């Protein structure tokens, strides 16, 4: 209890003491300010600039009993500055700089002229804040003064360069300015835009669209930036500009594709379509590069202009074919067919690729993908020749996979096959099969005959024939041996005369 009381007493004494110290310190500071006020006031009224500045500060800070009067304080400091007080001028510079006023730069120039180095480090920032966004003869005059006064930092140099290139200043030679601009453009987008105006101007000494294309992104710009697009339009970096350029002219061999590409990348869809096509086919001095083509074609495919979008779709389908991208091709075709879009006809027409691919690579395709494809081909809009092709491949798939397929899958495929194939197709398939069997049998017969001749035992022909019969299913696909055996047996049962004829006559077809 006693201990607690002691702690409370000590704490209370501490807080009271602190409060007293604070108020005492405040009072002491106020007393000092009052004494200073009294000392400088009459001098300030008499026009002494140092006193004016001090009094002004006292008013601004509100340190004395006279209270805070910012307006009066600033007026005094301004008057002191106007009458040549350097400290007041520095104070005003700080104030103007904080408020973003141009007067800070004005006062800094004054100080610099007087040989004061106060502003040396902040000159760049002040210039940045005070120079107008648009270059004008007046602003250039101001910048020239700054530059000639020794302020040759990056920003002022950039601005003076800009003035020289626009013909508002001759502080630097044109070549010197151009060289500055190239250096600045490497890291400053504003400078790069300016550099573009020279490099994209056809006929100018600096004309080099390829340089612009290669370095635009490095300068932090994008082809679709408004200022870039404006510059492109102004300098005919459009599809029209690309089209009109002579593709055979020597200096255009590398520059023309660059112009076309830049137009495309800035959003010119005609240009995108053209460049995509050119890359796809390797025409007009564009290298044949499907991956590059893809970039531009995909851009054009999303065009709101249906004609461009349709042309681009055709190119895209071609591109996928060339790239062997079956799944992309198929997915796109399916989307258009099922969505019944304007590209449906193109998609349907391009299904030949799917049919061909299916035929070639069905053994490596997943069952789901196969079903996806055959289901799509079952659509009434799909041309019959594609259907027939797919139907025939289904037959191959069934033969190829045989027992590896679930019965339900096999049944489904058989059902699709039935639907996709015409009667004529079916007859043709049957004929082909029969022919194949016959050919096989003939080959086997020929082999047997050779063996007989070698062994010189014509009497065991019947036995060989029986062996040949046993060997017949093995000649077909071993994986579907059971089915095939049965089918072969059936075939043999159906046409015994033919087999016998082949075997016993010993002649092939």
């Amino acid at each position: 209890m006693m201990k607690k009381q002691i702690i409370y007493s000590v704490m209370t004494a501490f807080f009271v003491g602190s409060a007293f110290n604070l108020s005492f310190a405040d009072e002491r500071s106020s007393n000092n300010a009052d004494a200073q006020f009294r000392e400088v006031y009459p001098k300030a009224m008499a026009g002494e600039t140092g006193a004016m500045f001090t009094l002004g500060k006292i008013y601004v800070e509100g340190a004395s009993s006279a209270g805070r009067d910012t307006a009066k304080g600033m007026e005094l400091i301004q008057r002191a500055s106007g009458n040549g007080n350097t400290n007041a001028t520095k104070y005003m510079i700080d104030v103007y700089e904080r408020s973003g006023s141009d007067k800070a730069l004005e006062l800094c120039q004054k100080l610099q002229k007087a040989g004061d180095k106060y502003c040396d480090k902040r000159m760049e920032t002040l210039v940045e804040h005070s120079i107008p966004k648009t270059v004008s003869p007046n602003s250039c005059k101001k910048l020239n003064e700054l530059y000639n006064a020794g302020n040759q930092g990056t920003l002022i140099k950039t601005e003076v360069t800009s003035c020289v290139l626009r013909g508002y200043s001759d502080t630097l030679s044109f070549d010197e300015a151009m060289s500055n601009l190239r250096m600045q453009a490497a890291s400053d987008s504003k400078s790069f835009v300016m550099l573009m105006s020279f490099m994209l101007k056809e006929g100018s000494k600096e004309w080099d669209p390829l340089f612009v294309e290669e370095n635009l992104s490095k300068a932090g710009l994008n082809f679709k930036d408004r200022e870039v697009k404006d510059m492109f339009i102004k300098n005919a970096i459009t599809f029209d500009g690309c089209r009109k350029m002579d593709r055979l002219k020597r200096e255009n061999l590398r520059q023309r594709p660059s112009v076309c590409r830049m137009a495309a990348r800035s959003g010119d869809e005609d240009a995108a379509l053209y460049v995509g096509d050119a890359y796809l086919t390797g025409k007009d001095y564009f290298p044949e590069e499907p991956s590059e083509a893809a970039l531009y074609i995909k851009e054009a495919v999303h065009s709101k202009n249906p004609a461009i979008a349709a042309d681009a779709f055709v190119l895209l389908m071609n591109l996928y074919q060339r790239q062997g991208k079956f799944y992309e091709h198929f997915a796109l075709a399916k989307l258009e067919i099922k969505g019944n879009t304007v590209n449906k006809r193109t998609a349907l027409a391009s299904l030949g690729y799917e049919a061909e691919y299916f035929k070639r690579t069905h053994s490596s395709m997943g069952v789901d993908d196969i079903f996806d494809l055959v289901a799509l081909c079952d659509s009434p809009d799909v041309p019959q020749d594609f259907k027939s092709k797919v139907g025939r491949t289904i037959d191959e798939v069934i033969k190829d996979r045989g027992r590896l397929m679930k019965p339900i899958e096999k049944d489904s495929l058989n059902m699709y096959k039935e639907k996709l194939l015409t009667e004529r197709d079916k007859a043709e398939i049957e004929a082909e099969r029969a022919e194949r069997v016959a050919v096989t049998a003939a080959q086997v017969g020929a082999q047997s005959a050779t063996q007989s001749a070698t062994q010189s035992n014509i009497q065991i022909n019947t036995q060989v024939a029986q062996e040949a019969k046993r060997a017949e299913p093995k000649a077909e696909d071993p994986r579907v041996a059971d089915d095939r055996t049965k089918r072969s047996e059936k075939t043999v049962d159906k046409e015994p005369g033919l087999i016998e004829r082949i075997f016993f006559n010993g002649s092939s077809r």
Partner: protein
Amino acid sequence: MKHFYLIKLCLISLMFFVVSNGFAGDKYCQSGSHSKTYDIHIFGNTYKDSNSKRQMAQGLTDLFSNIVIGDRVKVYNHNATGYSLSMDQCVPGCPESSFMENLLSTSCSSEVAKRDRKAFNTRFAQATMGEINRDNSSYDIFKSIQDLNDVYKGSRTNNVVAVAISMIPDGINPTDPNAFNKFYATNVPNLKLALDFPPVCTVGTSPSSEVMKFWREVFALQNVKFDFKPCNKD
């Protein structure tokens, strides 16, 4: 007609009575060049502590001792609302003359003069010190000085102008420089003193160097001539 003369006579007698009592000094006023007129301005409310009041009383006593028979004394009492003329009288007394002249003279009776002088002294004491203990109101020292100026309003006078004023701003400790600094900072920038009065001497003004320093600065700033010459130091 007879009644009319009687009324007229009564009125003249009454006027004479009033004049002889209200301006009893008139008959003592001397038109010669030796006599002076004293304008004594009392700013009683500027004296707050007994010490300063005593100083004022001492100063007035010293001033009074310089006043001689035939001098005219005008006492102005100033307060927060303005000022009033509380006394305007010549110092009673018969001019010095030979015994025979005294016998022949009928205009001045030394006995009457002695009595009048006594009354004059009492009246002077009342006029100058009467209010000092009663008026404890706050005041504005600058306004007080401006009031003094307003009595003369730039007119020239040959009178001796004596001002009994402490010159200490209200509520300020005359020995505390910080208090003067604060008062300066608070009041001087907004001060507009338009002073144009004849040369004055002071009575009972605080002898504190801080007070002197303060006023010297203020008057210099306002371009006012005011030299704080004490009245008893000619």
